[in-house]
Structures are given as structure tokens and as C-alpha cells.
């Protein structure tokens, strides 16, 4: 059996983390982080090949975490997908312009969109 791909979720809301785990656990190993600081400390050793990153995080927000990932030689090529309830008109465009590799809005109304996005981003590297 081939080794499973690990995906990191950075999310402060426990319900939302649980939902992502429930959705992904059949196909992926899910590594959980509750905030940006612990994610930046643990991502390199986690083996995660993709990050699902919330925006409204305590302390460092998602945009700041993304900049830190891009500035870190060990992490900078990691695909980062925004997973956020910031979903008003123009938000998708804004986060993609900030450098996120993908954007999924919360609530997740169709998990197939999530799976497709993950596959596309994982196939990229």
C-alpha cells in the first residue's frame, strides 16, 4: 500500500477542524494546527504536502502566516489553500492576489469541490 499524503489544516475553530478531518481522513493523513505560530513551528517536520489555511486566526492571521511560509526556505514551495468564511464579493480574488494557491469558502457546501482543489494543487508539484 502506497504511503498516504499528509495535509495540514491550520484552524482555530475545533468544529471546523473536526469537519475537515472527517471529510479527508479516508484519503489523507490530516495534521492539525490551532494557530499560525504552531503551524510555522511544526509544518516542516509534519511531512504535510499541502496546507489548508484559515484566515481569521488568533495572533497571526492567515495572510501573515502565508507570508511567513513564503519567506521560509524550508516551506516556501508548499501549496497553500485559503479555507475561509471571508467570502464576500471580491474576497476570492483578493486572497488569490495575495499569493494563495487556492481558495475554498466556508461553509463547505460541496466536498467534491474541496477534493478537486486538493488534487489539482497536489498534482502541481
Amino acid at each position, binding site marked *: 500500500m502506497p504511503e498516504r499524503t499528509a495535509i495540514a489544516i491550520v484552524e482555530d*475553530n475545533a*468544529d*471546523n477542524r473536526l*469537519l475537515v478531518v*472527517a*471529510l479527508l481522513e479516508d484519503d489523507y493523513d490530516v495534521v492539525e494546527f490551532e494557530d499560525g505560530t504552531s503551524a510555522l513551528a511544526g509544518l516542516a517536520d509534519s511531512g504535510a504536502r499541502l496546507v489548508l489555511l484559515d484566515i*481569521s486566526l488568533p495572533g497571526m492571521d492567515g495572510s501573515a502566516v502565508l507570508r511567513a511560509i513564503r519567506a521560509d526556505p524550508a516551506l516556501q514551495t508548499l501549496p497553500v489553500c485559503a479555507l475561509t*468564511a*471571508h*467570502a*464576500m*464579493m*471580491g474576497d476570492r480574488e483578493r486572497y488569490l492576489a495575495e499569493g494563495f494557491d487556492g481558495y475554498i*469558502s*466556508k*461553509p*463547505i*457546501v460541496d*466536498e467534491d469541490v474541496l477534493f478537486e482543489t486538493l488534487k489539482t494543487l497536489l498534482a502541481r508539484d
Partner: protein
Amino acid sequence: MYVERLPERVVEIQAAVDTLLGGDSSGEAELRSIGHQLKGTGTSFGFPELTELGGALELAPSDQLPSAAKDLLDELERVIESTKADTPSMEIDASQEIDETKVHEALHLQRFFDLSLELLCTASFDGYFKQLNPAWTEVLGWSREELRARPFIEFVHPDDLEATDLETSKLTTGAHVTIGFENRWRSKDGSWRWLRWTATIDHERQVFMALARDVTEERATEAALRAAKEEAESASRAKSTFLATMSHELRTPLNSVIGFSRILMRAVPPDSKEANYLGRIRDNGLHLLHVINDILDLSKIEAGHMELVLEPVDLEALVADVVGSLRGASGGLEFRAVTEQPVTARTDGARLRQVLLNLIGNALKFTSEGRVQVVVRHDDAGARIDVEDTGIGIPEHRLASIFEAFTQADPSTSRQFGGTGLGLSLSQAFCEHLGVELCATSEVGAGSVFSVVFPANLLVDAG
């Protein structure tokens, strides 16, 4: 000097009193006007009684005008008597041989100087006023003598001293003209008045020649406008932030409601009661999400925060795309896009797509049999997209109100057909923003046509 013309005033007052007593009411206005002018003359030249009696004449009740005029005449005679032997004219050198035309010219200029509503003055380079017109006293309250008794800089606000010194020293170099310089002047009642200056110098006579205008009220109005604008902008920012926060906070719990119900549905038999219940949780969650989205979009538009990206949009391609994406919802209906004439319009494709999704979605929802077709065509005004259906139709008396929020033609239809009741008002708001017209015609039982009408100025010549 002005007082030399006081005898003329005597004659004018007498004439006006005669006019008035002769039954012609124009004499009244004339008397009040003379009273007003003499009040100013009295203030400027230090005749307090003249000021008082001039003011009394200006404001006297109609029946007391003749007696007020009489009092003023008596005072005038006294002033004329007292000044006869007094100072020679400031403008006219008494020792010169007097040319009558020149005297008239000088008097004319003097009258202009005295009556000007602007503050006119000359001042010597040593920093003292020389000539001042009555407007100074009107604005600042100081008499001419009080203003001339001290260096003029002493009347200037401490915070404006440096700028004022700089401005006057630039003027004295001769290469500079003051236009629009503003500083504050202390008035006799202790308040500060803003004066806006136009000034130059007379090199030969070593004097400043300046004109100032009292802009205190103007500046107060500007400041109030600026404050109101800032307040509005700050309220608008606050509303924007509030909307973004609301959006985020309302969406977050729905993530669990929708997400977990979907996961559970996969774990129960598809036809079970439990699957039914879970489906209802999910569908109501989705419905709530749509309501939230629509309300927030509407609020954002109303707050003026919707940004448009205007570019040429091929309406045929857009309509085909939207029709394609709704194909799955068309059931057994004949559902098609028709292009009578190709049209390219300058608009925001994403917003127009939202409008079309809503209109076509409605047409499909309210049509159980027959046809829904979307037609792109030219018309007299420019071009239009018609969404035509053979659905239930809308009674004429409801047609006007369907664009209002939370209104469906029949309240019971929302139970039958669903929908947030916000789609059309949102579409209407989008269309207004895009400069296109959204209108509807309908016949109950026969169907409806919803049209997006583009005025000619938004059309792009396909050339």
C-alpha cells in the same frame, strides 16, 4: 475727506423727508439708507452721536421717521459746524490750486473706498495702518483710531505672527504679490476673525496697499463640511467592517451544520427517515446561507461598496454559459439560448451573470411545462436580453412590487417554490449599478418576460 460731503447729506435728508410727507413711500427707504450710511460714517470718523442717530433713523418706526430725521439733521449741522475749521482733506492738499474735476474724482474714489464691503487699507513699512475704510470697524469693532494707534501686527493671532511677518517681508522686497494669504485678527469683543488678503506695495510711497475679506464664516462652513465628510466616511468604513464581520460570523456555524449533515447522510441508508431528516438540516442550512449572501450583497451595494469591473462582454457567450450551467435544473422543459443579433456590451460580466442566473433560475422555478428561452436581440433603445417563460405569470397589480425585498407575487408561492425573496431586488440593485434597466411584463397563466435592457451608450461596436 468724507465729512466734507455732509452738507450734501443734509440736502438729501430734507428731500427724502419731503418725498415721504408728500405720500411717496420711496422716501422711507431713502431715509433708512442714509441713516445706515451715516451710522458708518459716525463710527469711522469718531462721531458717536452721529452713529447713534443714524442708527435710530435706520430702524425708526415708520411714523417716527420724520422726527428721527429731524434729530439727525440737527446733529449733522453740529458736526458740520465743528469740522469746518478742522482738518483739511486727506486726499486733497488744500494748498494746491484745486481743479474741480480732480476734486470730483477724488471724492468718487473716496466714496468707493468708504462704501466697499471689503476691508481696504494702506499701511506704512514701519508697521502702522495709514488709511482704513469703515468696513474694518464693521468687521473687527475697533475704531479707526484704535487700529492706527498700535503696530498692526499686534492685532494678529500669536500663531499667525510668523507667517504674517514672512508675508509682509516678502512683499517689501517688491517681487511678491499676496493673493489668498489668511490670518486671524483679534476683534474688539475678543473673538478672532479670519481675513483673506490680496496685497501689494507702492514702492515710491513705501506703503502696503491691501484688501482683505472676512472669511471666518466661509472657513467655519468648510470645516463643518470636512467634518461631515470625514464622519460619513468613517461611518461607511464602520458599516463595511460590520458587514464583513457579520458575513464571517454567520457563515462559520453553517460550516458545521451543512458539512456534518452531508457526512452523516453518507452513513445512513439513502431512503431512511434519517436521511430525510439530515437532508432537511442540510437544505435549510443552504437556504440560510443563500439568504445571508443575498442580504450582505444587498447591504454592500446600498453602502456603496460594490466595485465594478467594466469591460466588453459578449452577451451571446455569457447567456450560453449561464444556460449551460442551469441545464440540470430545466427538467422536461424546452430550454434554450437564442441570439437574434450578436451584442457586445460594456459591463461587469460577473455581476451580469448573477442577474441572469437569478432571472433564468426564477423562470425555470416558476415554469412547470412549456418553454424557457433567453434571447439576445437589438431593440430601439440599444439591446436587450429577454428571459421568456411559459410559467404561472404574475398578476399586474403585483408586477411593480416584485423587485422589493422579501416579496414574491403570492406569499404562499415561497412555500411552494422556495427562494430567499431577495433575488430580484438584488438583481435590480446590480442593474441600477450597471446602468441597465431591469423590467418585466407578464400574463397570469401565460408566462413572463424579464428583460435586461442595455442603452446604446453601453454597446460596443463589434465593427
